[in-house]
């Protein structure tokens, strides 16, 4: 009896949360933005999935507790119905009162979409039914055993993801003469019903088969002698490199542009990762180094800049990196004695100061004020290269891609080697406990400065590549949002984790480029990512082992933590 009442309250509470989430998604404009993008043509649009996702997820959560399958399913249903009811009340209210003056996104187009164009009352009733079904489905997924749940969930996600890739897959398939496959998969910017079933089946089978295949392969490799194992590892690396080299050719011009952005942010994040992830110094003014790199490169290489030098990129680069390291030292030196959170704010101050100075009329003779510096020559000095053997034509983004890939590889290699070096261990010690590190003989000031200078150099490198890619530089590019974007990448991937950086920039830079409707909500999502990751999974998606232990240390050592400590110092 008691359990039943608890479950009821739980279901209603989660239903309320779900309803609030749905209303938020509607009023903030996300639902309408995605209403035109079909997931399965004629069946469901991505915007609709977003309306269904909260009751589904919270039905799943509701059913996590309670006894008896029927009861748990009922609780899920109730969650969904409660959520739907809130939406229904909203829909009826909006049909009677015009609130567009306040909430600008609640347009007739939006209500028509949410209502299935059936009027407020009928539409509201349909929405209650759908939300109830979603809650029930969520609970059902929770109730079933993990053996069924995993392939089901991953297959459903697979369908959504493949449908999102339509704008790129379809034209590329056509380019490669595979229009038959394209026609089979897609129709009206979404998957066809048949294709959706096929994709669903493939993903379901793959989820079941993948762990088995992986275990078998691992066992077979473990059975061979060490020499063969090294060869296999080398071959894997070679295949990866070849794949990365061929990627722009497979991906086409537009996707190469996206790859360049992903690569650029990967580079920036690799640099900031040294400062934040390794040394544990939260630097919110990272954009300052990026800006310094861009402006220095533009000054040195552009023939029409204030210096009139017109140096080739590769001669300018060492000067730029040296200048960057010096900037890092100059900014780093005064602030490094500050405590963690003050350091963050001071670096933020430096970042903003640099932006305003680059923008100002006072320094216009040097940096061009709001107009910036134009005519920066391309990175390799030419606009076009053709590779005769493979028949590749390199120009624009594909041309930037290769140097960028090279720089990323170098930065990742340096970061990886540093991490397990004496310096890396010193950083590690410093991050975990500065006083103890100092007591054991780590020169904290020098190591902090080193981290700052290294991070600054990599950031400058990013700026240098970026400015040659755009052929010009504008102060508007260098807002605080760049620093926060790079920080989000690191947080999402996992602080101190190099694979995490790649995953983070693919997710936060690549995905918004793929989903154009998403661009408007990019920053919203970054903010959400920072909050959710910090609350739910501070070690990131691809965590670094040491870091994870550190962040969960407090839970293990709770009794000690409870002592009044000298936090105020």
């Amino acid at each position, binding site marked *: 009896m008691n359990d039943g009442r608890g479950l009821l309250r739980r279901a209603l509470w989660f239903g309320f949360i779900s309803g609030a989430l749905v209303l938020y998604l509607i009023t903030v404009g996300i639902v309408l933005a995605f209403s035109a993008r079909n997931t399965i043509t004629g069946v469901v649009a991505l915007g609709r999935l977003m309306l269904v996702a909260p009751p589904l997820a919270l039905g799943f959560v509701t059913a996590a507790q309670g006894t008896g399958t029927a009861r748990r399913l009922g609780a899920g249903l109730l969650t969904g119905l409660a959520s739907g009811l809130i939406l229904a009340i909203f829909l009826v209210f909006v049909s009677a009162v015009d609130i567009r003056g306040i909430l600008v*996104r609640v347009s007739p187009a939006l209500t028509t979409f949410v209502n299935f164009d059936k009027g407020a009352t009928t539409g509201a009733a349909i929405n209650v039914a759908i939300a109830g079904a979603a809650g029930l489905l969520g609970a059902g997924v929770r109730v079933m055993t993990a053996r069924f749940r995993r392939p089901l969930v991953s297959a459903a996600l697979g369908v959504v993801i493949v449908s999102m890739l339509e704008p790129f897959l379809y034209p590329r398939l056509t380019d490669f003469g595979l229009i038959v496959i394209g026609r089979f998969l897609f129709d009206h910017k979404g998957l066809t019903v048949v294709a959706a079933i096929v994709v669903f089946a493939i993903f379901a089978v793959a989820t079941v088969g993948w762990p088995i295949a992986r275990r078998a392969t691992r066992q077979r490799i473990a059975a061979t002698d060490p020499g063969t194992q090294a060869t296999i590892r080398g071959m894997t690396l070679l295949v990866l490199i070849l794949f990365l080299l061929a990627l722009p050719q497979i991906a086409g011009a537009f996707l190469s542009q996206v790859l360049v952005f992903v690569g650029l942010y990967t580079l920036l994040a690799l640099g900031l990762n040294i400062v934040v992830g390794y040394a544990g110094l939260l630097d919110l003014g990272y954009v300052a180094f990026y800006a310094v790199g861009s402006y220095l490169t533009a000054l040195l290489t552009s023939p029409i800049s204030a210096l009139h030098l017109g140096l080739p990129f590769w001669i300018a680069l060492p000067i730029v990196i040296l200048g960057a390291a010096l900037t890092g030292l100059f900014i780093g030196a005064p602030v490094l004695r500050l405590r963690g959170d003050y350091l963050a704010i001071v670096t933020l101050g430096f970042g903003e100061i640099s932006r305003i100075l680059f923008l100002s009329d006072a320094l216009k003779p040097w940096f061009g004020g709001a107009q910036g510096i134009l005519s920066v020559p391309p990175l390799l000095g030419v606009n076009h290269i053709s590779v005769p053997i493979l028949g590749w034509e390199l120009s624009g983004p594909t041309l930037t891609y290769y140097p960028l890939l090279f720089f990323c590889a170098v930065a990742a290699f340096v970061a990886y080697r540093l991490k397990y070096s004496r310096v890396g261990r010193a950083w590690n010690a410093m991050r975990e406990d500065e006083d103890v590190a100092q007591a054991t003989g780590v020169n904290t000031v020098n190591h902090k400065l080193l981290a700052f200078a290294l991070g600054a150099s990599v950031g400058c490198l990013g700026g240098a590549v970026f400015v040659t890619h755009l052929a010009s530089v504008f102060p508007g590019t260098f807002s605080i949002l760049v620093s926060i974007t790079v920080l989000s990448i690191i947080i999402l991937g996992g602080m101190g984790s190099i694979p995490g950086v790649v995953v983070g920039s693919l997710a936060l830079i690549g995905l918004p480029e793929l989903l154009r409707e998403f661009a408007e909500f990019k920053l919203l999502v970054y903010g959400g990512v920072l909050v959710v990751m910090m609350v739910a999974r501070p070690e990131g998606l691809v965590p670094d082992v040491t870091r994870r232990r550190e962040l969960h240390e407090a839970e293990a050592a709770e009794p000690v933590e409870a002592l009044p400590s000298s936090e105020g110092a």
Partner: protein
Amino acid sequence: MRRFRRLSIVDVILLALRVVVVVGVAVGSWATLSAGQLRGDQWRDLLVFGVAQGSVYALIALGYTLVYGVLLMINFAHGDVFMFGGMTAFFVADALSRAGFLEANPILGMTAVLLVAMFSSMVLAILLERLAYRPLRRAPRLVPLITAIGASLFISNSVRGLYGEQVKAYPALTILQGKVDLLGIPILKTHLVVIISALLIMLALYWFVERTRTGRAMRAISEDKDTAALMGINVDRIIAVTFAVGGMLAGAAGVLYALVFNQVHWFMGFLPGIKAFTAAVLGGIGNIIGAMLGGLSLGVLESVAPALLLSGFNVPSPNQLRDVVAFSVLVLVLIFRPYGILGRPEGR
């Protein structure tokens, strides 16, 4: 013992920085004053404007200081709590103005607008604490700061989605047009209203913190959270109250800001937020009187300094660089006197 430490590169850079700042300030002001570029009444107008915007900064800074006092955490999203209050109250102000109520009863109308702003900011601040910060009470120090940065981005972009991107102009009140003479000094009426309301609100806060039971509990928590809990104070509740009070002050600041600058928009939380934080640090973070003084001095500094320091060097359009002044104050205070004007060095 500190005196006998080896001189490192860091000390040299710090010393150089000090010299540059002192010489720069001295030479710049001397050059400007001796050239006599601005007349006396222009300086006075700058000063009054500085006090008006400074009192807005002070109100926001109090929120930073209160939260820092109890949680030792920089609530980076506080600027956006301020923005949310100003934005939400705009719709009430607009509706009242269209109904003609605001012109007929300006005092009652503006009070209603102010209350709406305070209430909405308060609700947001409580939600923020409950959802984003409370789960992180025992986390390492940088974790709540990163969360706060994320929350700031999330709130501002949510408001952009909900209320739209365009700048919204607050209705202008005829009663607030023109100037009044105060002790022989002509002051814009809006500025006078802003300064007086800010002062009244700050007095109310001072009374609340010093004279009420809840205020005493807040002070106890800021001294020692664990002992306060042992004395029977409900720490979670008091922290929520602190956020609520900070939010109310920020909401009021949102309306006063709109009176000074006439407009509100979704991105307006960032700069005043940072500046108010600067003010809080300037006055010694955790110190209530300090936040008030810090806000006023930063406001005046920001309004006067570009003209005073930079025009002496013949810098073109010095007003572009007013934000640099605020950020420089932030950087310099944190580097050289992180415990602020009224604070005392800790642990030394």
